[in-house]
């Protein structure tokens, strides 16, 4: 045993402490701790670690096991592809699954550049001026505190900032957009043949829908006139048709062809809209984008902090090496620092994204519990997410829905794990590249 051990001696096991540095050889022998007791402590510590780790594994296995046992019987193709019908046997979660994937993908695409960029600014471009440094430490303090804010608070913030945009575009009237591109509005009329009373006895009379384009969603309803050109869907394309208008006093035509082209002059059309994939509106409304931005607020602090840690762990000798070769700040960051930090950044991002996938409270505030039949088609489309759908199912009184909720949890876990698996594989690849 070297004399170095004496530096951190702790009196125990009958060994007398000898604080005085000048002791005889015999005194030194006395103060050395017995090897046996130290080894015993070492073994006990290792055992304690195994037990503690084991407890968490057991709890996790128990939870997962009970969920899987409950959910497996209800796990079916219908659950994955179906819509949330009120009948438990037909209920599916497809709109929620698609909504989760949409929201989380968009959230990741927005958050990662912002989060990593902020971390790079803080770690790599430390300002030189005193004021700049003050400002930076203030930002740093804010980021650390924001990581602990309950997510429901972010939900309310998102509602104000993204859904209604602080009312900058005028008080939201039923959430109507103040500005939009990519939307076309139609007034939809049904023909007389769809009236079961009028079409009685007239065979070949088929139900048809005619669409009259309107300029804006707020326009007054179209008044149908005879000889007016409307549009009709033939398959996927809109074809023009000339319609007849039958007044209240007129007799409806008896010719099936003519009847199917006739519209009741007093009918009130339904306003429908077609939205292109690039549909965009201001304020954002309760759409996918608002949800993704709100989740961004929730996970941004986590991503910034973990990216900062990863960047800080890159040895400064690498930066000096690149700088010494004449690399600019951008070249150092892009070629050296970020690649070296990427495994750490990815680990933080995985954890943050897992949180985003499971987050319910802010989405509940942004999207509300709405009945959604379709996967989102554009950034402003209404949506629901799996956690919300599960929450919805668990709050139903029927026992069957609880089993479906358990199956939904299994699906959510599978999505979560596959997101994580992709990220872990990516990280492994990067690590192999780096080492």
């Amino acid at each position, binding site marked *: 045993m070297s004399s170095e051990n004496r530096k951190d001696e702790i009196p125990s096991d009958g060994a007398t402490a000898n604080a005085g540095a000048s002791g005889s050889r015999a005194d030194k022998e006395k103060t050395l701790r017995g090897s046996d007791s130290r080894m015993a402590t070492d073994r006990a510590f290792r055992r304690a670690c195994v037990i503690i780790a084991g407890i968490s594994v057991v709890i996790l296995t128990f939870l997962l096991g009970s969920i899987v046992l409950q959910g497996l019987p209800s796990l079916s193709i219908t659950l994955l592809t179906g819509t949330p019908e009120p009948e438990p046997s037909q209920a599916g979660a497809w709109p929620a699954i698609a909504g989760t994937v949409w929201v989380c993908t968009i959230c990741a695409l927005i958050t990662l550049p912002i989060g990593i960029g902020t971390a790079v600014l803080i770690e790599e471009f430390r300002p030189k001026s005193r004021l700049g440094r003050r400002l930076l430490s203030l930002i740093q303090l804010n980021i650390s505190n924001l990581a602990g804010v309950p997510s429901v608070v972010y939900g309310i913030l998102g509602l104000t900032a993204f859904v209604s945009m602080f009312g900058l575009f005028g008080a939201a009237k039923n959430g109507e957009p103040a500005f939009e591109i990519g939307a076309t509005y139609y007034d939809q009329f049904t023909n007389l043949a769809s009236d079961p009373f009028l079409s009685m006895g007239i065979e070949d009379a088929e139900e048809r829908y005619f669409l009259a384009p309107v300029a804006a969603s707020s326009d007054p309803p179209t008044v149908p006139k005879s000889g007016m050109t409307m549009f009709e869907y033939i398959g996927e394309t809109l074809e023009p048709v000339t319609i007849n208008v039958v007044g209240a006093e007129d007799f409806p035509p008896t010719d099936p062809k003519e009847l199917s082209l006739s519209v009741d002059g007093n009918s009130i059309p339904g306003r429908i809209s077609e939205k292109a994939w690039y549909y965009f509106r201001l304020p954002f409304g309760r759409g996918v984008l608002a949800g993704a931005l709100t989740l961004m607020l929730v996970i941004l602090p986590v991503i910034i902090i973990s990216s900062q840690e990863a960047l800080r762990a890159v040895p400064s000798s*690498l930066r*000096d090496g*690149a*700088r010494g070769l*004449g690399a600019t700040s951008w070249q150092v960051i892009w070629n050296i620092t970020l690649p*070296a930090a990427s495994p750490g950044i990815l680990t933080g991002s995985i954890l943050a994204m897992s949180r985003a996938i499971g987050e319910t409270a802010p989405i509940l505030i942004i999207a509300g519990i709405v009945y959604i039949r379709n996967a989102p088609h554009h950034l402003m489309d209404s949506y629901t997410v799996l956690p919300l759908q599960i929450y919805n199912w668990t709050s139903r009184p029927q026992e069957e829905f609880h089993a479906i909720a358990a199956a939904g949890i299994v699906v959510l876990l599978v999505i979560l794990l596959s997101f994580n698996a992709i990220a872990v594989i990516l990280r492994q690849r990067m690590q192999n590249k780096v080492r």
Partner: protein
Amino acid sequence: MTTNTLEPIEKRNMNTVTPELANQSEDSTPAIQADNLNAWYGDFQALHSISLSIPKKQVTAFIGPSGCGKSTLLRWFNRMNDTIHTARATGNLSLGDMDLLDSSTDVVDLRRRVGIVFQKANPFPKSIFENVAFGPRLHMRLEKSELSDLVEWALRKAAVWNEVKDRLNAPALGLSGGQQQRLCIARAIATGPEVLLMDEPCSALDPASTLAIEDLIDELRDQYTIVIVTHNMQQASRCSDKTAFFFEGRVIEFDTTEKLFTQPDSQTTDDYVRGRFG
């Protein structure tokens, strides 16, 4: 290190990518000239009125006890001190007609002309090839074949080619400490610098690797102006032409290595080179 095999590659590359090397003549104008240079870190003055001229295409050694300012001066030669925001300097420091203290100096170009090798080998966590190709890629657009010629030339020049030629795509961190340091030297000379700064390049290496680096310095002295900071007095006396002795931020003595080690003017220098302190 068989010279006859590396001749042709060397010549070809000198014409294409490292033209400065070819037409540097044996003139007596100094490579780097410092006049009354004072440098601070915050309130601490690290250098006191340094005046010295680093001769071209010779090896100049900086010796002195720890904290005497030799590394600080070296880091001013290619403005590595820019990363330390409390560092500042007054006086004159020039490389040819380039003012090294002017804030408008193009540090990117300066660092291409003045390469640096650090105390601890710091290969990038990339392949061996990528490490050497990193510098040239920053400054030049090269064809693939030109780049691989240049990498081979630099690795041969740094006497590490024979050890790595079969595993250019292997990670550089898998090399031994001495190989890593020679790789870093190859990386530094691949950008075609005029001056090569070495900040205690052998202090973390075993004797065999140290010997390899010293041999390498000997090989490179004809083409590069080399400034080496060292704590190893034997190393300074073995491989340098001129030596500067630093003490407490001042240059106590700057002379030919032979004179400084055998009959120094100053008593402090004499004490230091005889190992009485430091």
